[in-house]
């Protein structure tokens, strides 16, 4: 399956889903006018990708410093899928980056960890 890449814009994150090497990256901010439209493709590709996994390790890196509530829902959908992939015997490692002073992003990450216990969650506090 081919790599899926979208460059960042002022209100959408960089999406670097390097499926061949099992590495997924989201970086930047997410508040598109229509989150469903923006994430539709991303979720569809991820579904396809998960379908092809056979007890493998996927490295997920999330480096977002803002996302609005409709993006939040889409992120939940994404991690719901990855959590299922983990339940099916794959290893999903999630590096959740947050600025060391950004309690808001950290809290959201901890919620994710609680909701999706099969994902190996690592909070990565970034000093800046």
């Amino acid at each position, binding site marked *: 399956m081919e790599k899926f890449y979208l460059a960042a814009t*002022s209100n959408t994150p960089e999406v670097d889903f390097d499926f061949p090497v099992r590495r997924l990256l989201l970086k930047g*901010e997410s*508040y598109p*006018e229509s989150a*469903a439209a923006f994430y539709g493709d991303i979720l569809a590709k991820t579904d396809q990708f998960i379908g092809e996994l056979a007890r493998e390790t996927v490295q997920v890196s999330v480096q977002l*410093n*803002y996302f*609005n*509530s*409709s993006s939040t*829902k889409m992120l*939940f959908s994404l991690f719901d899928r990855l959590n299922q992939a983990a339940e099916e015997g794959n290893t999903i490692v999630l590096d959740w980056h947050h*600025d060391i*002073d*950004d*309690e*808001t*992003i950290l809290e959201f990450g901890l*919620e994710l960890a609680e909701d999706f216990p099969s994902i190996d969650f690592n909070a990565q506090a970034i000093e*800046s």
Partner: protein
Amino acid sequence: MLKEIRFAGDLLIEASAITPEFKNEDVLALFSQKSSLQNLPVLLDDGRPLGLINRNLFHSNMTKPYYPELYSQKSCIAFMDKNPLIVEASLQIEQLTALAVETGNKIFTDGFIIVIDGKYQGIGQVLDLMHAMTELQARQHRQLIESIEYASVIQQSILNPSRMALDAYFPDNHWLIWAPRDVVGGDIFHFIPTNAAAKDGTTENDGFLAVLFDCTGHGVPGAFMTLIAESALAQAIATHGDHDPAALLAAINQYIKRTLNQHDKETGTRENSDDGLDGMIVRYDKNQQHLIFASARNPLFIMKLDHDAPIEILAGDRKGVGYASTPMNATWQNHLVPIHQPSRIFLVTDGVIDQVGGVKKIAFGKRRLCHVLADVRHADVPTQQAAFVKSFADYQGQQSRRDDVTLLALDLIPNPT
């Protein structure tokens, strides 16, 4: 006022044209006679344009060695551009602009030829086209803004009764920031005083119901959602009364899901909404000295006024109201909070907490918000409000606003028991 320019024909400049029978020496003469003449269209006998001779290109050719000798007596089509942009007068200027851009650099010097049913009418200039496009965009923008400003009048009139009720109930001990990001928005509040039956059979005030909703999206879609949320709330109160916040959230959930047909699996491939709201409902009972709070993903901040205890933050339930993923029969919890001392509560949307700013470009955050609010704990209302507004604006700095922002601060003074 200038004539509204909508079609290529509106940009028409009459310009004389020649035919292929003209020789290059005739063209040279025409350009010499009239120094303002930049282009000469060449037409077939039936009036269809064949091409365009550009003054500068023509001269640069005719000054090459031996060219005058070789070409003076030849047909003028020798140095003619055979592919000028030719457009029908009825073409809309948006489409004309797209074609002009595709044509490339030469469009700036050559302009375009305007025809009706293929027959030459005259020429158009790019500068005129740019003027027309600028005017068109300004007009469209103005219409959009006027439309949203009118929508804002409607949205504000829905909020007015609550503003008036707040002013009457809390003459000098409440403040409110309601600031949609884009004139209209997805945040709304609702406030009603509540009554209980008194011993003599009449009713008397026993507290209030305060509601803050942050609907999906912002701008126009957010504002649509606030109208649905407002109707849902009114219907829920009519059915369940104004004393049970959790029951109201459950009823609002069902109303939104029904209204947006989120429960309907029969719609096939048609796109159904996955919209809803985060928010909270607070019922304050001054006789019982407590508040009951039910919330969907939205924290409530409570600050004691008689001593300097830290602000308490009550988390909401994690389920959103409405939304395809929330079941029709979803329920929320009522949390009972005793209020025996004078306290100030803050109903805040995530637009405040998540706003990006500061040196690090990270969220404003709950901790910073608590600091700001606690610093002005004993100050009067204008001072409290000004302190928040300044701190938030300073933090946001040059960053754009990310979301709608609402903050409602209410002072609770319990009745003595």
